[in-house]
């Protein structure tokens, strides 16, 4: 969970009993979890509804971060004002990729992994060639750069903000999936593409929109975490691994599972990093994934479905 960041800005303002330490740990975990949720949501939607493991997901996150940097440093736009344009830009990139690459790969799931990986390399390399590989920094919105009191602990306002943004985006996504026509069509296609097509649903268009939306979410995630760490062309690699673990753990086709597993992993990585060194923590998490896939490929938080 390297990219999720385990250092938690903030400090204890009173008392240092075990309970306090525990609560602080919980808050750290919630903060990591909300970042994980932000990053994983786009991947979860694309994987769950289209069956595509999008290895370019990390690069969408990276593109979002770079767009934030570009808008801020060249156009003087603040982070909050940039969010909508960032979403549109990265979603457009996603739409183009779905339209011209992935839609050509129907029924070849292993090949979509390879293709998205190749696309990821191209995106990463393009950014490197255009703006160089030096680290870039994005300013936090000034209104959120102080700290807030949470249960007697002083917590960075920006992290509290991220927590609520993550929850809000989840709610929006859930509504889109379950309460709109496009979402209903998407779920119909997930059930049976040919039957859906016979009812006049344009699967190609819905897929392109879904992929674009997932990409846009990844872009937002990249923009939102950019003030917390530096921006670089290869920053996406860590995120795609984190996001993927969240999705696998949460169970495919389960948005609620994604939320549960994001916060579960957030708390877990907070705890592991607290107890162990970094290498051991990484190895343990990877081994846990291996064992999980072996014994519960449908994820921890999903109910078993017969295929």
């Amino acid at each position, binding site marked *: 969970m390297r990219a999720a960041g385990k250092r938690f800005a903030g400090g204890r303002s009173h008392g240092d009993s075990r309970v306090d330490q525990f609560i602080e740990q919980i808050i750290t975990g919630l903060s990591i979890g909300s970042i994980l949720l932000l990053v994983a949501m786009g991947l979860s939607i694309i994987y769950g509804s289209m069956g595509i493991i999008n290895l370019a997901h990390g690069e969408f996150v990276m593109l979002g971060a770079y767009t934030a940097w570009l808008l801020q440093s060249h156009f003087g736009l603040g982070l909050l004002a940039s969010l909508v344009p960032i979403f549109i830009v990265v979603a457009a990139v996603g739409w183009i990729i779905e339209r011209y690459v992935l839609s050509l790969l129907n029924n070849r799931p292993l090949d979509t992994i390879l293709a998205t990986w190749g696309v990821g*390399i191209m995106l990463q390399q393009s950014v490197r060639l255009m703006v160089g590989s030096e680290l870039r920094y994005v300013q936090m919105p000034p209104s959120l750069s102080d700290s807030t009191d949470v249960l007697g602990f002083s917590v960075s306002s920006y992290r509290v903000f991220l927590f609520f943004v993550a929850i809000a985006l989840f709610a929006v996504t859930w509504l889109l999936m379950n309460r709109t026509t496009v979402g209903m069509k998407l779920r119909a296609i997930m059930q049976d593409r040919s039957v859906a097509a016979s009812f006049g649903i344009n699967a190609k268009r819905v897929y392109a929109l879904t992929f674009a939306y997932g990409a846009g979410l990844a872009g937002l995630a990249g923009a939102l975490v950019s003030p917390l760490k530096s921006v670089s062309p290869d920053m996406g690699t860590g995120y795609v691994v984190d996001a993927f673990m969240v999705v696998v753990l949460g169970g495919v086709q389960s948005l609620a599972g994604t939320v549960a597993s994001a916060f579960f992993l957030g708390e877990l990585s907070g705890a592991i990093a607290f107890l162990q060194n970094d290498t051991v923590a990484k190895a343990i998490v990877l081994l846990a994934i291996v064992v999980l896939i072996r014994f519960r490929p449908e994820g921890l938080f999903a109910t078993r479905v017969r295929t």
Partner: protein
Amino acid sequence: MTSKTSPHNGIPQLSAQIAPLLLVCALVFALPLILNNDFLLNKIARYLVLGILTVSLALSWGYGGILNLGQAMSFGIGSYAMAMALKLKTIPVHTGSGGLPDFMVWNNVAQLPWFWMPFKSLGFALVAGVLAPALVAAALGWFVFRSRVTGVYVSIITLATMVVLNLVIIDQQSYTGGFNGITDLAQLELFGVAFDAYGRATYYLVAGCVMLSLLVAFAFTHTKAGLVVQAIRDHESRVRYFGYDVAAYQIFVFALSAAIAGLAGMLYTIVMEFASPTFLGVQISLSVVVWCAVGGRQSLVGAFLGAVLVAGMQGALSESAAFLETWTLVMGALFVLVVLFLPKGLAGLAQGVWRAIAQRRQATQEVAGTVGQTREGSA
């Protein structure tokens, strides 16, 4: 994959299929005759070794349908087996008391760890370099395939397992040389021949192993077991209803592939003169996938040439940093295009062209009225 076949000869004519393979081997062996540059030969030997590694992936991915994203794990194990043996051969020069490798001395290790002991025997190391990866793969394969894990999940598990081993090697610096790997090795000596990385002997050793691995892989794909493995790739569950134990076949091809990758790893240590954790890194693993896809995953010769050519080009261009950056972009694009439009890689393209030519020739022959083709009896 089928070349011209005479209707009564059982197996598609073996000779027609093995010809390109033997041709490539002949070229590899002939190269030193025209190229009198030891430095360049060493570089080429390196690409040939990567070619062997790619052949091993073609076996498990192209034929078995198992996309192993951790193929470099077997490569790395082979490489370390060779490096450990060669390190222990350097006792008088680079080691501390009791034949302890230098990095152990620096890390205050007092005694040679137990798992280093058997590597005092070169014979053991040579066997272990092939057998250890095969056994590890068989164990992992048993863990994975017995529970019918398929597709991308296999890829994730292989990748994750490799990264864990990589982390452990880097972390356990005092026993493995850590991040720096195992360096300052002795030269391999076999039957009185010294294998200097820049010598002809090493080149021919590599060339011999290229031929050996291509032939072993070719032979396997042409046995009935090889056929069953391809059937599993096409339709895994269907094979079960004919009575085949699918997992057993998958484990076998997975282990065979790992053994060949282990052989490549041993050669890599000889050619590079060190072993490093990067040898079992994500970078090499993913590169192998690209080479294999570009060359043609369902063609052993194609995969081999794909690796040699692409890795060779990359090596030639890497002299300049700016070039390399652009090259990576071009590689990414090339890779996407191959995945989209040439799922069987350049080998598939070549086969298609070859078949078209053959058909046209046949058509003109028929028009000319020379239909009386000789039909061979079963050979």
